């Protein structure tokens, strides 16, 4: 059962350097997949090609039997509604309250006017509070987001993604700006999204050990090419060395 498929995906920002070269992979429903690789390997670009936040030049992305590259504006909006996204810097609206930021995730289902006026149904509001409670931040619901800690803000980000009722959640280095404690909380929540709600997760990670502990499968990216794609327990020291281009013992493993 494949949810997402990339075929010969290629992307270049200018004529000289190709950021992504001939990327092929397949992700099934309910999988938790991590993408690892050094900075500049193209992890963020790859993630953004899937919901076309970045336009790719070559190849195909198939999501739920839809050809992502051929969607018109309306189709693209519908696709994005179905894919949640979580960012390294949380990307909330800092001056608005937590609950407002969570409800922003419903915009994809609304007409422009409903969204602008902020008309949300009772079910949507109940769902928002349910998610906040699930992530343990319901007591902050009416606080402004810039008053929260990084870990709390990231949990608001997760709520915003989940209220979209997505089939897939893309996480772009969700724990790169967090301390080890908050990182663990966030990763546990992401894992439970997959195990309890059956939502597929595709996560960009810097930390190899975190990827090994949490993922079903790991994709290793190096200079825009996939150099490893397999179950996380198959990732050996040689693979890590190949991906990062240095001895594994020389890497800081957190």
């Amino acid at each position, binding site marked *: 059962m494949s949810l997402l498929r990339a075929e010969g995906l290629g992307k270049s920002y200018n004529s000289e350097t190709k950021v992504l070269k001939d990327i092929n992979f397949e992700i099934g429903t309910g999988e938790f997949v991590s993408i690892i690789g050094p900075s500049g390997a193209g992890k963020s670009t790859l993630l953004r090609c899937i919901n076309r936040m970045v336009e790719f030049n070559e190849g195909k992305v198939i999501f739920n039997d839809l050809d992502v590259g051929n969607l018109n504006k309306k189709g693209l909006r519908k696709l994005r509604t179905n894919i949640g996204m979580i960012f390294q810097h949380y990307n*909330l609206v800092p001056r608005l309250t937590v609950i407002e930021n969570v409800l922003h995730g419903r915009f994809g289902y609304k007409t422009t006017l409903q969204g602008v006026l902020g008309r949300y149904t009772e079910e949507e509001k109940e769902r928002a509070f349910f998610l906040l409670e699930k992530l343990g931040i319901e007591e902050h619901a009416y606080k402004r987001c810039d008053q929260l800690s990084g870990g709390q803000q990231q949990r608001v980000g997760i709520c915003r993604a989940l209220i979209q009722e997505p089939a897939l959640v893309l996480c772009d280095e969700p724990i790169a700006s967090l301390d080890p404690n908050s990182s663990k909380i966030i990763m546990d929540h992401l894992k439970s999204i997959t195990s309890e709600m059956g939502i597929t997760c595709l996560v960009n990670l810097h930390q190899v050990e975190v990827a090994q502990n949490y993922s079903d499968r790991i994709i290793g990216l190096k200079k825009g090419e996939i150099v490893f794609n397999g179950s996380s327990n198959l990732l050996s020291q040689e693979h890590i060395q190949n991906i990062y281009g240095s001895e594994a013992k020389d890497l800081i493993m957190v």
Partner: protein
Amino acid sequence: MTEKTMRKSRWQTTIFLAIIIILTYLSSAITEFNIIEGIATLPKAFSWIFANLMITPETFDRLPMILETLTETILMSIAATTTAAVISLFLGLFGSNTTKVNGVLSAFARFIASVSRNIPVVAWALVLLISFGQNSVTGFLALFVGTVGFLTRAFIESIDEASKSSVEALTATGATYFQIVYKAVIPQCLPQIISWILFMIETNIRNATLIGILTGTGIGYTFDLYYKTLNYNAVALVTLCIVITVIMIELFSNYIRRVIL
């Protein structure tokens, strides 16, 4: 930095200073301006100011008339700024890289901003004077055009700086353009936008005095009238009123800024 380049840079400073001194000397020689003579006349100028620009009790009879024209000027400045702010908000949204609709509109917005900003307000007033004549509409339009240019530029920067990340996030949720603008960009930029508008109101009240002299309206006209009829006591009172108003507006807008930021 090696010793050689350091010595070179010290020489550069010396040469640079020498060039400035020569330029100053040349320009004062050409314009026949003698700086020592200029300084020497300062005491005389000040004694004239103190002798003539004194507010006498009789001048207070003119206060109601002065305050009336001053109010006209303040209201005109506020009206010009707020209407310009509405236009600038749209131009700012089109011109910003984060919220631009397409390249053509973005270039158009930046072009408008740059043209109206780089022509001085006084020049606008004189140009508009020819087509609209001596009335407050001319003054309003001159302030309006200059303000649109400045505010558009300021709004573009505020929008770019404040909302890049949340715009990205909301685009990824499938939100439409206007949903993003109303629910992410405007809430996030509002304090800066208000702050810029307040700044522009202050600036425009100052500019309005000058423009009033040219267009024959408001407090500028009153100033010009007393000045040309050699009524220096009244001129002093007008100046004092303007200074007090500008300071009050500045204090008031500083207070608003402190509350909203």
